[in-house]
């Protein structure tokens, strides 16, 4: 029997000051999360230009997640508040265009929350895997 399970590609933008360290902690504690998650470190969640999200989809991502410091805890005081508005607007627009809403997510994960990081990624990967390949925002020129 041929099992042709699609392995999703997940891009996770992680803030250097919290979630990136959270990912480290998850690793140190040997918590499992799928290797399909490709982490891109950003100095702050608000460094994530909405175009990065679209670009990730263009280059073949099946899901994009942005992780930042909890509201109130941003290293630069207010970066994540801007992220929150921007991503709410962007995700809502993607939904409006008929792109599955489970493909995008914003989560707050601190440096002490290794377990939350792993759990979040597991849950996200599971949801995206269930959706299958990203067909609605794919760029044929970038097909691997």
């Amino acid at each position: 029997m041929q099992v042709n399970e699609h392995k999703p590609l997940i891009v996770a933008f992680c803030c250097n000051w919290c979630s990136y360290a959270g990912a480290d902690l998850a690793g140190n504690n040997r918590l499992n999360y799928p290797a399909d998650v490709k982490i891109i470190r950003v100095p702050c969640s608000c460094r994530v230009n909405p175009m990065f999200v679209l670009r990730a989809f263009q280059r073949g991502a099946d899901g994009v997640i942005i992780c930042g410091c909890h509201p109130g805890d941003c290293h630069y005081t207010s970066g994540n508040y801007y992220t929150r508005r921007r991503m709410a607007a962007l995700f809502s627009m993607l939904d409006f265009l008929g792109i599955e809403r489970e493909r995008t997510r914003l989560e707050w994960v601190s440096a002490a929350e290794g377990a939350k990081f792993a759990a979040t990624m597991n849950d996200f990967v599971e949801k995206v895997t269930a959706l299958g390949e990203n067909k609605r925002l794919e760029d044929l020129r970038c097909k691997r």
Partner: protein
Amino acid sequence: MQKITQNQLIEKAASLLSDGTVNAVLGWSRGEFGYDVTPKMFKTEEDLKENFVWNDFCGVNFSKYLVSKTDRFDGKILVFLKPCDTYSFNQLLTEHRFEREKVYAVGIPCEGMVDVIKLKAVTGEGISEIKEDGENLLVTTIYEDAPVKVAFKDVLLERCINCKSKKHVAYDELMGDEGEVIESKRFDEVAKIEAMTPDERFAFWQNELSRCIRCNACRDACPACTCEKCVFDNPQSGVENKAPANSFEEKMFHIIRAYHVAGRCTDCGECSRVCPQNIPLHLLNRKFIKDINEFYGEYQAGAEVGSRAPLVDYTTEDLEPGEVFDRRDIDA
């Protein structure tokens, strides 16, 4: 069917030119076919008398032109602004895109403008002459002997059918009576799409956006799009100027275009007006406006100078993106 006449505007412009209040007039000039009215800088009374027009085809919003015109022209410019244009005018001032002192703004009332695509759908191509006749337009084409009668209200631009304001929010001088902000139905269409299933929404947009020929007219006409270097001109962007070879480009282009003006878009309707492919760009803009109103409180870009655009602002209590969807599911 404009209430204010072309001659009144020419007289006003000529007198402001001759008394030295202004040195040039930014106005609409006669095109070849009556419907292809073109922006022009008038510097003499003769030119005004010969070429200046004011009719049902003067949809062009001059606010954006002020950015380049005030930059390149030494002296004061007279500009005529319809109510919707004044919102763009304020928004550009908020963004410091031109110097207010270099402009003399005259607010003029507007009864709505004609959509040439809708008009041609009735009359066919080959329009040679357009005359006003009460509430109708008499359109002569090169193919028919008798002119075709078209009701003015049947060929209005979408933005005029759903006009949001007859009130001028900026001017130095006002001609005619001041209007009111209107309770418009402009979000109805957006709500209809929101109520579709994701598959239907995707099919709807695929159908609309696949017609895009990437002429960039929507960007070029938009008074909120005034960056000197635009991402769409960058060959590295993956969405540079070219015919869409694949559907991602269209979607990316349209999401980025609408997102770039989110919170700053005054809903002036220029993008949809200029699109040669009749793509309902206003629906994308209004989706952002509707969301912003629902999530962060009512906001009208350009209503006043100096207001802070919602996407460069925040409160500590804002909705999470996930909550946005939860809320919608509960509403549904």
